[in-house]
């Protein structure tokens, strides 16, 4: 592993985030707009959807959109011959994928900060301590790996950046309706338990609700998120390496 190579690509990805309007909107402005909209529309505790309920869902929902940006980015770079060009340098596929994981983890942490700051403005008062916040950041960083993996699977299937946008909704929509900011019912729970976002929202709700960090429920959530995220990123990398980078 060569750190110079990895950091060069991370720097490039972050420049893309700032300079490409679509990326900037989806990754940073979208979580802000979403939080603002929900804050104005549902910020009243009388509606039963105050920010202690919505914030974990909003954070997870923002992170899910990494699927779309990763898929668009990979298909676009493939179309432009950039992936092939990078492939002619001594950079290994491990370094290449590692750089994407780091940059997307960083973006997901930025998203948490944006949503948290705005939620605080709308009256959200988390009951967690510093360790709890660190664990919340770790949870979402881990979940970003899952989104990168699903983005890679999307990029493997999609023939163009346009198609990648559409296909990514196969992974975005279920997580949007079954497990993020829309409250789970007994009926939707049957589906939601098969989605990683359900466990992320559950973990964040526990952490921000002041549940002890050693609670069994939280450890189960963390275990599921870890296993699923690592499995999906491995599947994503393998599929993309075999079929996507052509």
């Amino acid at each position, binding site marked *: 592993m060569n750190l110079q*190579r990895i950091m060069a690509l991370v720097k490039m990805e972050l*420049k893309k985030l700032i300079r490409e309007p679509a990326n900037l909107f989806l990754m940073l402005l979208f979580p802000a707009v979403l939080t603002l909209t929900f804050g104005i529309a549902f910020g009243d505790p009388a509606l039963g959807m105050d920010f202690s309920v919505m914030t974990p869902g909003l954070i997870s929902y923002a992170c899910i959109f990494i699927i779309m940006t990763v898929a668009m980015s990979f298909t676009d770079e493939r179309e432009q011959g*950039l992936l092939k060009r990078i492939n002619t*340098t*001594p950079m290994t596929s491990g370094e290449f994928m590692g750089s994407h994981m780091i940059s997307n983890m960083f973006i997901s942490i930025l998203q948490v900060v944006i949503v948290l700051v705005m939620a605080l403005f709308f009256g959200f008062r988390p009951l967690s301590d510093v360790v709890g916040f660190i664990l919340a950041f770790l949870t979402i960083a881990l979940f970003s790996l899952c989104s990168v993996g699903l983005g890679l699977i999307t990029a493997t299937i999609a023939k163009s950046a346009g198609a990648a946008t559409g296909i990514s909704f196969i992974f975005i929509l279920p997580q949007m309706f079954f497990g993020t900011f829309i409250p789970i019912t007994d009926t939707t729970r049957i589906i939601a338990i098969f989605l990683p976002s359900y466990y992320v929202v559950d973990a964040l709700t526990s952490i921000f609700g002041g549940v002890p960090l050693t609670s069994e429920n939280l450890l189960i959530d963390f275990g599921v998120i870890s296993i699923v995220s690592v499995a999906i990123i491995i599947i994503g990398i393998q599929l993309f390496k075999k079929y996507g980078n052509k």
Partner: protein
Amino acid sequence: MLAKSNIKDKPQKPEDVFDLDNNSAIIIKDLVKQFEDVTAVNGLNLEIKKGELFGLLGPNGAGKTTIINVLCGLLKPTKGTAIVGGYDVRKNLKKVKELIGVCPQEPAVFKFLNARENIELFGNLHAMPKKKIKERTDKLLELLDLTEASKRKTKGYSGGMRRKLNMIIALISDPEIAFLDEPTVGMDPRARRSTWEFIGSLKNQNKTVILTTHYIEEAEALSDRVGIIDYGELIALGSPKRLMEKYESKNLEEVFLKITGRRIVEGI
């Protein structure tokens, strides 16, 4: 799908083309590359010397880009061996990639980065020291007349400017072996001439250059030797002068038309 050639005098066996000393930059033995039912490269044997500027010519779809893609590790050979800088592309691809610079046919640059950022990115991907990246970036931008535009995002570049940048990126790591796949397509005559001069100057630095081009006069002016490929086979090999004598032609273009045209006429 590939028809057999019966052209006389074409190099056929490895012993016809190999001078097996240590002065070889590239050795290709019995190389075959198949895509499902299409044979893009069919039993190619070729040796390219260190410091040689080798022109790879051929009609569209002849297999030139496929050969380059195999040599730089983007495609796995179906059969045969390709040794680049002393390393087998199947076994030591990482070592091969440390030695080569590749200028792809279509300019591949990040549009949201400026020229300098693009070049520096690829310098970092080659793990070059920061100081050397800066020195070479300045030098190459100057040589290809891109210094003034180097801080502008490449999104606004003309096709010619993008092609120049494409070549600079290929050469940032100061590679021992450079693959230039049609580097001057779409450039205006002035830019093409200055790029020719630049490519010619690589010879003085003892770089091995493999140049594919459709501008036959470009290959004639720059190449020490040319190889003409058709239907994935090497059908002629030699210095431009030798080939012109052999085929009794005024220039290399005539040679090219004679031997590639003959295949069409003969219905091969």
